């Protein structure tokens, strides 16, 4: 594994802030949407803002979809962020979009009974661990991260949910399966705690505690 992080740029917006955050923690990062370069990557960040349908259209058009799937199957450590945590599931309720299907599940829209809760869910909120994961090491009660989203990922298998956040409901804010980990929040915008998560990603071996769990994806 090389130390360079390959940030996938599929026209999804917050690439430069992710790149800057990598630079802040001393990690080398390159930005690309070229499937050939993704095939060579030792470590991948799959970011994204915007909407699932336009994100999926971009990854298909660029061939990023197949390249990311190959990287996942090869065991390359991958970190998905925001939309990058949503379109790794089978489908999204946003535009009823078929997605990459790297983890079985659905991205759902907040359907909150408390109408005083505003959508998008935007701001700082607590990320509560439900099971340990190397990328979440050190996160403790009351640690908050920055969110901006109206949809959230919901894996079919609860074992793949590593953290939840309370916004009317406890929704999945961090999920993972094998060498793929993803956060609904933005580590690159979450101050020191977010930078630490990115730092842990730079040395992650791609092993998840879920390896022993027989998942539907096996």
């Amino acid at each position, binding site marked *: 594994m090389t130390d360079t992080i390959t940030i996938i740029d599929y026209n999804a917006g917050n690439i*430069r802030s992710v790149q*800057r955050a990598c630079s802040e923690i001393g990690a080398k990062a390159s930005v690309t949407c070229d499937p050939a370069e993704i095939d060579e990557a030792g470590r991948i960040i799959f970011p994204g803002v915007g909407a699932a349908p336009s994100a999926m259209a971009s990854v298909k058009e660029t061939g990023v979809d197949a390249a990311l799937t190959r990287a996942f199957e090869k065991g390359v450590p991958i970190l998905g962020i925001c939309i990058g945590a949503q379109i790794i599931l089978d489908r999204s309720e946003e535009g009823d979009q078929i997605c990459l299907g790297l983890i079985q599940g659905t991205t759902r829209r907040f359907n909150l009974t408390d109408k005083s809760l505003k959508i998008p869910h935007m701001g700082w909120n607590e990320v509560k661990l439900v099971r340990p994961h190397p990328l979440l090491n050190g996160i403790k009660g009351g640690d908050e991260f920055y969110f901006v989203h109206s949809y959230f990922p919901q894996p079919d298998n609860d074992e793949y949910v590593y953290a939840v956040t309370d916004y009317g409901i406890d929704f999945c804010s961090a999920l993972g399966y094998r060498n793929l980990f993803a956060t609904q929040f933005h580590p690159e915008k979450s101050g*020191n705690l977010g930078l630490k998560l990115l730092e842990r990603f730079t040395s992650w071996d791609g092993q998840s505690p879920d390896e022993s769990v027989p998942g539907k994806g096996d």
Partner: protein
Amino acid sequence: MLSKRLITCLDVRDRNLAKSIKFANTKDIGDPVEKARQYYEDGVDEIVFYDITASRENRGIIIDIVEEVASQIFIPFSVGGGIRSVEDATRLRLAGAEKININSAAVLRKELISEIAHAIGSQSTILSMDIKQVEKTAAIPSGYEIVINGGATPTGIDGLEWAKQGEELGAGEFVVNSIDADGTKEGYELNLTRLIADMVSIPVIASGGAGNPEHLYEAYAEGHADGAVVASITHYGEYSCREIKDYLHGRGIKMRMNY
């Protein structure tokens, strides 16, 4: 649940910061990039940069400051001042600003709100409103009038009506800045803030008038604000963000305490 946000506002004039008193006199308070980094380390939740020369002297935004700030702070920040087009907004987004503040230009041409919201998303489109209390009239039934050009020009537009339109046009957040309270350190305009916060379904940020941490408590608890902007009380070291947050946390307000 979401924490309330402590937001600081840095008025940028050339390479220097300025803090206004009722928008009239400005004095420099230092380098914006360095100051932003200090605030970031002190635990501020968000920063607003206003290019205060832009509106008045018809100058563009200083992109390089935004880029430099973006490589130094890793929390959301927004930029405002003199944004007149989708191009302005897009350039600032690419330079690293999470959100864009529009104000006077939207009053002069309200379609700008929907154009920018369409280009960069509602969640990144903040409508800042400078509001002054006036006599209630048929045109301004709430008694709160929108003013532009840093408070110098009345518009004849009712503040509450403008907020309603702004939300419909796609603004994702409001900054409610009371010209009467700005720089006085006597507290936020709570009535105005609450009227708007209770009326709309997007986040509302109270701005203008913070003199002590209790004023922030009032903005959240009585003004129903999602965030509150401080400037004078933190720029010169009177309070740190940590002290303000400790106080609010002690009063039962949910704040981001670990950083």
